[in-house]
């Protein structure tokens, strides 16, 4: 059984090697920038903001920043790794190898998930002692994190397969994911928004992703945890189905 999936193990190992060869860019920089947000917005300016949902501001922003850092890492790792592999054509070395299409998909997807976990762990190691943020619902946090990793890893794979230039992959990160994360309640509670912005926020898919993770940390969120997990799971399922279809049919991978 292990021998049968050894090629998959090697593909995952290659993705991990790539991440850690570039660790200052791939892990250290995102941890540092997320931690700086906590220091600057939470500890420095946060003193001027009264409590949000019963928590000090520096604690309130930890789950959102944790989610945003992991989501961006999972996405950008996979989109750039696959785009480079396509662009330089060394993807062919993997496509010709005795691996099933789902193994190739999984191998690339796990790379982003592992990088995101490394960033998440690094950020928590710095942020939890500094802010004292709690983990009140670990059995909600665990599936929420898994769904975030699945959703954004697969999204990275899909964009990596569709991107024609390096700009396309950065476009989705800078113009889609980042604004949606900022407007999805990373830095504020949507309850503080006036109508119609509160209702509009509920159309933002990243709002549910942030809410699911925030509930895992703080035991409270801006929407029902069932709805937050349900929407995140549905988005993740859609992303898995799409990337699986692309690999199974060879579209966007093989001419």
């Amino acid at each position, binding site marked *: 059984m292990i021998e049968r999936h*050894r090629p998959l193990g090697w593909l995952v*190992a290659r993705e991990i090697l790539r991440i850690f060869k570039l660790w200052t860019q791939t892990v250290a920089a995102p941890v540092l920038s997320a931690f700086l947000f906590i220091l600057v917005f939470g500890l420095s300016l946060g003193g001027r903001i009264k409590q949000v949902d019963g928590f000090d501001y520096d604690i309130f922003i930890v789950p959102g920043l944790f989610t945003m850092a992991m989501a961006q890492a999972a996405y950008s790792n996979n989109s750039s790794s696959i785009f*480079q592999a396509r662009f330089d*054509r*060394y993807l062919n*070395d993997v496509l*010709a*190898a*005795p691996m099933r299409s789902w193994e190739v998909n999984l191998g690339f997807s796990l790379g982003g998930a592992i990088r995101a976990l490394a960033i998440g762990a690094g950020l928590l190691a710095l942020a939890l002692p500094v802010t004292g943020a709690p983990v009140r619902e670990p059995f909600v946090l665990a599936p929420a994190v898994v769904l975030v990793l699945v959703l954004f890893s697969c999204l990275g794979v899909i964009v990596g397969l569709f991107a024609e230039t390096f700009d396309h992959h950065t476009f989705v990160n800078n113009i889609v994911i980042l604004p949606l994360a900022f407007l999805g309640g990373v830095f504020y509670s949507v309850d503080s928004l006036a109508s119609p912005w509160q209702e509009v926020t509920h159309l933002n898919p990243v709002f549910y992703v942030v809410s699911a993770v925030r509930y895992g940390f703080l035991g409270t969120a801006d929407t029902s945890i069932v709805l937050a997990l349900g929407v995140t799971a549905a988005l993740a399922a859609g992303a898995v189905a799409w990337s699986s279809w692309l690999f199974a049919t060879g579209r966007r991978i093989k*001419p």
Partner: protein
Amino acid sequence: MNALELRGLTKRYDDGLLALEGLDLVVPAGEFFGLVGPNGAGKTTLISAVCNLIRVTAGEIRVFGHAHASNAARRLVGVAEQDINLDRFLDVEETLVYHGGYYGMSRRDARARAAEMMEVFDLSGKAGVRAPKLSGGMRRRLLLARALMHEPRLVILDEPTAGVDFELRLELWRYIRRLHSEGTTILLTTHYLEEAEELCEEIALIRGGRLLARDSAAGLRDAYQADSLADVYVKAMAR
């Protein structure tokens, strides 16, 4: 036993280009087989189809009796593509070791085989150098070493000597000949007619995705009543 069997192989790209049209081809095991034709003849498409790098429109491909998409078939094929397509993040040794891993080798076996390949291809001194920093000749050798890492029974070489200097070409010929003498089936595409004549037991002429003729160099000269393979080529392509 045939190393490669193509039956009615057709490939039409998404833009409508018909690169291969109902192509039939059999390459017996152990043969040194050459595929010669102009740019756009379908040589690289044929190779890409065998190696699962493109979606085949119609037809059947079997490698030593196995369906080409099966893992059993994939393990038996090694390919060195025309363009240098080396992983920019890996050094020479990692390129070989990871390739071995993709083909199911254990870390220990892959490292031992990589050391052997680096020795054979004179790459040992560059083991820790990343591919983009290698010279063109070194990259070409690494490409060939990578294709041979998992000890394939069918080695496909797509214009392996294109753009290399005369010395390296002779060196690569030597490697390829040795490989063939050890029983490996070779499918070689080339633009160089003297290369095909020098190395190949049988040569197929291909144009517009169709096979025009196949025979030994001498057989082709007889069939086309030509003095040289170059004359054969000119006559065949003009028809």
